[in-house]
């Protein structure tokens, strides 16, 4: 056993074993780089990305302007503006301001919403060129942020 140990030390067997490990990782199927933006990752449904205001199947906004999301948000970056409709006596949403620059995508707003109206969609490509662009208003939240899609 001692002799084998000496042989191992002299012939640098441990170093050669390490070299073999790095060498065999060169197989093309082992290379894991994803060449973004030509290959985009698969995002799960639960991913907490860009906030969106959802509509029902008739195209009417699900939001009831209750303000639960504004209360739930740790950063107090949601501002919900509403009017009370004189006929139905229900609140109607007028403004919905979301400050994306301070959002930490925690998901507490979508948990708090009783109507399931605000959802953090699986969209992670949120880079913008202006700071003002990060103050999302109701229209942007409904339609999504407009960006240029890059393919290379």
């Amino acid at each position, binding site marked *: 056993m001692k002799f084998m140990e000496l042989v191992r030390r002299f012939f640098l067997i441990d170093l050669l074993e390490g*070299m073999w490990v790095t060498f065999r990782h060169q197989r093309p199927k082992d290379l894991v780089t994803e060449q973004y933006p030509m290959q985009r990752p698969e995002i799960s449904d639960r991913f907490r990305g860009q906030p969106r205001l959802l509509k029902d199947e008739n195209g009417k906004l699900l939001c009831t302007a209750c303000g639960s999301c504004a209360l739930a948000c740790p950063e107090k970056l949601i501002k919900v503006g509403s009017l009370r409709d004189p006929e139905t006596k229900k609140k109607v949403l007028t403004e919905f301001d979301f400050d994306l620059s301070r959002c930490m995508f925690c998901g507490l707003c979508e948990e708090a919403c009783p109507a399931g109206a605000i959802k953090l969609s699986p969209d992670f490509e949120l880079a913008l060129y202006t700071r003002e662009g990060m103050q999302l208003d109701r229209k942007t939240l409904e339609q999504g942020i407009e960006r240029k899609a890059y393919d290379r």
Partner: protein
Amino acid sequence: MIQGILQYLHSNVTPGEAGNLFWEVVYVLLVFAGISVGVIFMNWFERKVMAHMQVRIGPMRVGPHGLLQPIADALKLIIKEDLMPANADKIVFWFAPVCVVMTAFCGFIVVPFGRTHAITDMNIGVLFMLGVSSLGVLGVIMAGWASNSHYPLMGSLRSGAQMVSYEIAMSMAVVSAVMMTSMATGTGTLSMIGIVQAQMQQRMWFAFSFFPVGLTALGVFAIAMVAETNRAPFDLPEAESELVAGFLTEYSGFRWSLFFLAEYASMMAVSAIASTLWLGGWLRPFPNFLSGRAWEAAFSVVPGLTFLALAALCLFYFTRMPRIRAMRADAIGLAAFGGVLGLVGIVMLLPGVRERIQDIYWFTLKTGFFMYLYIWYRTTFPRYRFDQLMKIGWKVLLPISIGVVVLTALIGVRHELLALVWR
């Protein structure tokens, strides 16, 4: 004069030996261009190989598969601002990278790419190469001194100390190889071409002769040459620029690229020494055992086939390029590159070129093998601490290399010794 130029083409000596100035200059330019292309290729190759070993792909965007990356890097370095520290010694600061580059390139004067393909063949070839690479240490120390800053000075002194200590082990290993040249004929030679011819004569590459002495000498040299060129796992002065900045800190832009060029050139120089001394230089595998016209012909198509295989690889990747408009230029570039490689391969298969290109091809292949080893070491091994590094140089490699020299000497006089013993 034209007759003098044309006359050389039929000789079988190097231009230096023939005293032919024109061809010497041509060879100098060719070697210079060759080293530069080699450095550029090494930059790309290192990044790609390191990346593949690290389960990622390397540069892919600058050209098709990153082939134009070295050119982009070179361009960036050239147009960078040239800073000089305030109280630096201007002349020494200017001269240090020049010194390192010159010594790295000068070593290639005696490197034989073939029997007649060397700039000249000095009869002290190996000694010249070792001496010139020792001068590189001077450049490193000058760089640290001229930076007028505490940390580069310390870094350069450490780097210099490391290079000097490993040079001794390197030289001992070289001495052992030189002694082996005298085994058959009784007279040894320091000339690089002579060493390869001795290997041819003894019908055995020195790496495998008198196993394991030759292999140990090669092993010692292979480790010492990595330390000599400040590469992993001995790159503490260079990469510990985390803590104590290496001697390169104050150099930016083109001056830094000169150091970088010199590093790769000296890597190629010591790889060339290793492949000449132990792996048979320009000899093809088994020149004696597999001799004869059939084998000659078989081996002579190998260079052409290699290039054709590379061209096929390029075209294979061309078919796998994404078919989007933005990648069109890249795809065409890759196909063109594959086409050029294929053309070179076909030219190498022509009967006139086949025989001449053999030597250069096998030599480049062996040197390339050592360069691949460099990249492999860098990817795999952690760094040695400086005191451990010096300990290995002085306490481990030096005794082993002296032992190898003594053993080689004993093997050299074995007949006399046996005669003495048997009486």
